[in-house]
């Protein structure tokens, strides 16, 4: 009797003990995306009962540090959301798992369905290291009523037309208001103009600065001119109390910004102005221009012990219907053309300009040092616009500074070339030509 009871209780105990034999996929996501994606993930877990997803939310402001620290500590997760300008960095670190073979075998992920500029941000040295998750770019938000009142009857498609429109608006609104808002603490506007040029931003395989080129000089001149003409105020974002209020007040009529502002404007614009604003693609030197191929990708880490399960999650999140639901929840724009065909996105008038712009986005140079380089670029532009520095001199100094930043990259590359030419190929990928703004549009 006693042994029977003991046996029974042991069995009961064994049965009651929670045994989780499911594979755990650790997924790091940033900001609001992390909150929203956890809902989508429930469904994934239902479809794949043997997989459990653990989401860790990381604030954007410390994401870069956390990821690098985790790399240093060998504590990276299985998959992660990675800003696509960070992909080159992690590529150099050798942290990312190549995905081309998986993509080729996949029925869900169809390379041709993605906007090419966006897809290319994930291809470093001819190796595919990530799958785009959502996209981000900059284009024009504008006030229809003010433009109409100023006599601008067509949306500008070239730089020349845009300058004419801005002049007309400025003449209409007077000395206390402006035509366009280009916050001096942001680099995206000047960068967009730079990417619209034929000259790449870096030369010699991304190892030297090319900002003194005729192309970028034109971009800087165009940018600076807007301030000199008085069309744009020499202000940074912190100097305006509230950018949405000011847009509503007509303090400026053109605003170069990103997709999140669709939602913000919808929420914050007063009722009478709700149909008085719109979005339009960026004008370029000779016609609709290129833009920044921004956004985030889903990447898998090389040291992950659960690659197949992680890949299933990546495929799940790349399904058009899942992407559409993701968009509905958070407003981030999908990277696949087929997702854009869903009624909600198709019918969204503001999103359509983004759809158009996304066909013409260009990746930024895929060098590890890019974050620093773009900050230097912004500082240079501020010196020119606020400080009155001469443009050519500023560009030369920027190039000198960038060359210094890239010195280590040159040295590492030289060593690789030497090593590869001395012995049989070690398998380390060779650099390919810099990707910025070279491909024909």
């Amino acid at each position, binding site marked *: 009797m006693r042994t029977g009871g003991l046996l029974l209780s042991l069995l009961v105990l064994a049965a009651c003990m929670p045994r989780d034999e499911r594979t755990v996929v650790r997924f790091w996501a940033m900001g609001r995306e992390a909150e929203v994606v956890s809902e989508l993930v429930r469904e994934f877990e239902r479809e794949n009962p043997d997989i459990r997803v653990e989401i860790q*939310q990381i*604030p954007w402001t410390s994401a870069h540090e956390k990821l690098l620290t985790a790399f240093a*500590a060998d*504590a990276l997760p299985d998959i992660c959301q990675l800003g696509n300008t960070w992909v080159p960095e992690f590529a150099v670190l050798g942290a990312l798992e190549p995905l081309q073979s998986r993509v080729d075998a996949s029925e869900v992920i169809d390379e041709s369905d993605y906007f090419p500029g966006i897809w290319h941000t994930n291809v470093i040295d001819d190796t595919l290291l990530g799958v785009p998750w959502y996209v981000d770019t900059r284009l024009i938000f504008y006030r229809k009523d003010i433009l109409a009142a100023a006599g601008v009857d067509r949306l500008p498609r070239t730089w020349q037309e845009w300058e004419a429109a801005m002049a007309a608006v400025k003449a209409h609104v007077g000395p206390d208001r402006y035509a366009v808002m280009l916050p001096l603490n942001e680099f995206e506007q000047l960068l967009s103009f730079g990417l619209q040029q034929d000259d790449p931003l870096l030369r010699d395989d991304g190892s030297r600065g090319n900002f003194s080129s005729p192309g970028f000089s034109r971009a800087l001149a165009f940018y600076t001119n807007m301030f000199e003409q008085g069309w744009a105020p020499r202000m940074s974002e912190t100097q305006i109390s509230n950018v949405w209020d000011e847009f509503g007040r007509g303090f400026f009529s053109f605003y170069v910004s990103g997709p999140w502002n669709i939602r913000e404007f919808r929420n914050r614009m007063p009722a009478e102005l709700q149909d008085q604003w719109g979005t339009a693609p960026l004008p370029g030197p000779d016609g609709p221009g290129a833009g920044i191929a921004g956004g985030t990708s889903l990447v898998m880490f090389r040291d992950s012990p659960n690659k197949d399960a992680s890949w299933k999650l990546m495929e799940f999140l790349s399904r058009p219907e899942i992407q559409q639901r993701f968009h509905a929840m958070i407003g981030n724009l999908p990277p696949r053309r087929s997702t854009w065909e869903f009624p909600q996105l198709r019918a969204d008038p503001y999103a359509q300009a983004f759809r158009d712009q996304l066909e013409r986005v260009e990746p930024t140079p895929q060098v590890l040092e890019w974050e620093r380089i773009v900050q230097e670029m912004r500082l240079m532009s501020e010196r020119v616009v606020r400080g009155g520095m001469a443009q050519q001199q500023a560009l030369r100094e920027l190039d000198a500074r960038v060359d210094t930043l890239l010195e280590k990259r040159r040295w590492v590359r030289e060593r690789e070339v030497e090593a590869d030419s001395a012995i049989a190929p070690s398998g380390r990928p060779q650099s390919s030509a810099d990707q910025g703004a070279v491909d024909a549009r």
Partner: protein
Amino acid sequence: MSRVAIHREVGATRWSAWAVNGALVALAVVALAPLLWMLSVSFMPMGEASGFPPPLLPSAITFDNYQELFARAGMGRYFANSLMISAAITVGALLVNTMAGYAFAKLRFRGRDRLFQFLLAALVIPAQVAMLPLFLMMKGMGLVNSFGAVIIPALATVFGIFLVRQYARSIPDELLEAARIDGAGEMRIFFQIVLPMLKPVLVTLTIFTFMAAWNDFMWPLIVLTDQTNYTLPVALAALSREHIQDVEMMMAGAVVTVIPVLLLFLALQRYYIQGLLLGSVKG
């Protein structure tokens, strides 16, 4: 509290009393106001604190923010982490620093004083200098993201050793000599004679160590990479970036972080102040 001062006019006395106490009240208000506001806001319904004009008192006391904090933001875990780490550091550091402080005060060994001066000189080096290589060292030891990485380096501090040494110097040598002559071993002398005599400074050291461990921010920020291991200050800093709009919840988080050390201080402030003086003003 007797008014012994000899003044020419009674009016002047009363005025100076008003002036002095008035100034003290004003200063106390300035010192406490942010903390009281923190407490008040933590009980406000969501969104109320961002109203204009900013409210001083909650319209209705609600525990929602605390609930939100513990249920959704996982504050309970961070509190537990902080508690565990601070307690471990306190217990460990107490033993290590007391033994060392006693040794530097009372036990003779070659190069003792030279070594102590060297340690004092090390006080000038900012701790941040060591943090980067220490991180790499922790990585090599496989300790990154573990509590051990936070606890072990904190087990010995020059300040702690200095504090104990200052106090231990007042132990009469004859007492120790007598015990040695009686045949007692050094360990026994330490635990049975010295420690009881060191009780006041031990209390002080406990408070200092616990508070420093509880409030420590930069090193845990660097070495604890996984959210589940965060201590309260690190979690609060991370939350404050995410939930910058949720004033009320942030204040509840601040309350949870600040209240334990504040209470500890209130209970044992006498010892804390004593230790502060002992450590700062060369006796």
